[in-house]
């Protein structure tokens, strides 16, 4: 029996030294509190086991006694260090902290109160037996805490994390049993069955610890098998998904299962959610595992154990993120093609509508001019002078309208063909506003609030046309008072024409700057002489000059049409 125990002890030395080396190596590779406690735990344990093998089991020299005491003090540190490792993941109840600490302190200090430590075969004095009982209690208590914490914590973890944590839990439990057994075994010269069993347990626990904190690849491969099926299912789902949302919906349940998480989320590069799985509210940011995608992120709910135990699951998730990127690239390409086809269809429809409306708007004045001319020629004698004057006035009015329409259509087509080359110079805004209002003969009816030295980089003719259009619209569709304002806005100048009429209907605002858009059927050329192209030309001219044109509503009623153009200094004013 003695030789068996000796052999087992020799093997133990090898196993625990290997464990210590692996633990230190892992800590060196990726530093962290948990890894540091784990390395310290096994370095201490391996040192104790090695030194115990080297120390003689008999004799009572003072050096030997001191060495044995230090060895025992170090040995009782093992459960405490392992407990500290567990405590890095969870807040441990205060009474447990205190009990563990007091028992450990008592075990470490207590050994130094004995002048002579009994060796195998010697009778144990009562005080020493009590001390052994305290040490056993410390081991059993701390190992119990470690075992329960790891077992409970492992329940909701990803498969590999769960297996690792449960293995560590079993190892801690086994260590507690081994110490209890050793403590209960009476002191004797020749070891018996109890010593063999204890040695066997301690030996078997070594590989369990190894499986727990550094599982070999073949074990990982076995544990990962179910996850790989999940991975395969996820990738086949990704192949079948066609849109970003479909990819997200297919992927996230698999990701959540692989990570053992309740919820998962996929976002784009702006942080907008593409797809979500499970309840997101219980997901504070520190408890997330986030894997970057090419254009976004994949996030799952995590827990304090994830950084230490969840590395393999994170690696699987990262692999899945790579497949996701490929699927997303394909989906974006397909979406781009769909969008292109849709844009072409819309452009085609817009062109067809444009041709239809343009034809209609061109034909109407032509029909009226032709109709009245023919009538006057055919019925000259029958018509009264008043009729003739009415008809001629209508012909004149419709000719003007036709002329404006043709001009606008030509400007529009030049803007479309990018053939408008603005003659950009520094222009004084107040000059342009004053000149435009004077030309329209409404200088006294408009309140202009434009700083004198404000200049923009613009084509003067284009700016005149923009302001003219806005002001004409304010009088046609809005109500006085009409105001023109201009002010600096960063590197730009914003010019606004504001009226206090009924404003623009909500459902029409999106179409305001579109061609031939008129609020309400029948409104437009009939009532106002508008061609329906004014605002779209304004937008085109503003854009061609490096600016922007837009609409703002005015509270409580009214409309504000604005243009933004690059600001410049007053030098070079024409």
């Amino acid at each position, binding site marked *: 029996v003695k030789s068996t125990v000796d052999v087992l002890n020799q093997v133990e030395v090898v196993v625990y030294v290997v464990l210590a080396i692996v633990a230190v190596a892992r800590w060196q590779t990726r530093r962290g509190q948990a890894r540091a406690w784990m390395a310290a735990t096994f370095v201490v344990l391996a040192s104790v086991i090695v030194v115990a093998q080297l120390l003689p089991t008999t004799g009572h020299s003072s050096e030997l006694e001191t060495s044995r005491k230090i060895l025992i003090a170090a040995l009782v540190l093992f459960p405490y260090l392992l407990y500290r490792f567990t405590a890095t993941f969870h807040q441990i109840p205060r009474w447990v902290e205190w009990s563990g600490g007091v028992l450990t302190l008592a075990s470490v200090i207590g050994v130094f109160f004995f002048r002579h430590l009994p060796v195998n075969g010697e009778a144990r004095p009562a005080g020493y037996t009590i001390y052994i009982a305290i040490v056993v209690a410390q081991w059993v208590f701390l190992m119990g805490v470690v075992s329960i914490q790891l077992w409970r914590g492992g329940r909701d973890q990803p498969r590999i994390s769960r297996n690792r944590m449960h293995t560590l839990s079993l190892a801690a439990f086994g260590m507690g049993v081994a110490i209890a057994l050793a403590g209960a075994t009476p002191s004797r010269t020749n070891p018996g069955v109890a010593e063999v069993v204890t040695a066997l347990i301690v030996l078997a626990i070594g590989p369990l610890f190894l499986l727990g904190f550094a599982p070999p690849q073949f074990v990982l491969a076995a544990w990962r098998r179910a996850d790989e099926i999940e991975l395969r299912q996820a990738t086949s789902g990704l192949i079948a998904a066609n849109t970003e949302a479909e990819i997200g919906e297919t992927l996230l349940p698999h990701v959540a299962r692989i990570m053992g998480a309740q919820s998962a989320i996929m976002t784009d590069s702006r942080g907008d959610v593409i797809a979500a799985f499970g309840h997101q509210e219980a997901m504070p940011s520190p408890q997330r595992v986030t894997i970057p995608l090419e254009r976004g992120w994949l996030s799952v709910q995590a827990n304090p154990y994830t950084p230490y135990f969840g590395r393999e699951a994170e690696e699987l998730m990262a692999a899945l993120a790579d497949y996701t990127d490929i699927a997303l690239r394909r989906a974006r390409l397909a979406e781009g093609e769909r969008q292109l086809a849709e844009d072409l269809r819309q452009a085609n429809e817009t062109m067809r509508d444009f041709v239809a409306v343009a034809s209609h*708007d061109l034909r*109407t004045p*032509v*029909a009226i001019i*032709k*109709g009245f001319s023919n*009538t006057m020629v055919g019925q000259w004698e029958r018509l009264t002078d008043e*009729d003739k004057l009415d008809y001629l006035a209508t012909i004149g009015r*419709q000719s003007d309208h036709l002329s404006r329409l043709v001009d606008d259509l030509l400007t529009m087509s030049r803007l479309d063909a990018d053939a408008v080359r603005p003659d950009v110079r520094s222009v004084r805004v107040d000059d342009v506003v004053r000149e435009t209002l004077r030309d329209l003969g409404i200088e006294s009816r408009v309140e202009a609030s434009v700083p004198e030295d404000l200049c923009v980089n613009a084509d003067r003719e284009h700016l005149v046309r923009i302001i003219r259009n806005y002001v004409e619209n304010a009088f046609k569709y809005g109500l006085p008072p009409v105001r023109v304002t201009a002010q600096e806005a960063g590197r730009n100048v914003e010019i606004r024409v504001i009226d206090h009429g009924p404003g623009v209907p909500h459902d029409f605002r999106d179409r305001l700057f579109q061609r031939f858009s008129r609020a309400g*059927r029948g409104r437009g050329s009939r009532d106002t002489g508008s061609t329906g192209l004014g605002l779209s030309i304004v937008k085109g001219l503003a854009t061609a000059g490096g600016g922007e044109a837009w609409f703002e509503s005015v509270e409580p009623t009214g409309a504000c049409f604005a243009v933004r153009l690059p600001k410049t200094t007053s030098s070079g004013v024409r």
Partner: protein
Amino acid sequence: MSRASLIVVDDDPDIRMLVRAVIGGDQRLEVTGEAVSAGEAIELAESTDPQLILLDHSLEGETTGLKAAPALKAVAPNAKILLFTAYDMSADAKKEPAVDGFLRKDQVAKLVPAIERLLGLDTVA
């Protein structure tokens, strides 16, 4: 001889004036009313029971001339409806049973012959 009554449904006052001018010299025809929207046109057709409705497609309000045609036919079943618009809508007009004829506005010179054909009037030389 009684004159054939017709109503003009168009939101453009110049077109309404033109129609009056074009058929004003024809003793067989008489414009008995004008309307600018589908609603107005239906009321007018019901009250005047015209023999012909000259109907534009683009009207005030949301209802177009083509959409209003069945309702007009329902209130004035004896009236012929001539769709008179600047849009190319001859195919749409053919598909709508309530519409009896189509003429584009720029072919205004053919307005009287088109009305003669629809009302079965003798062609004026």
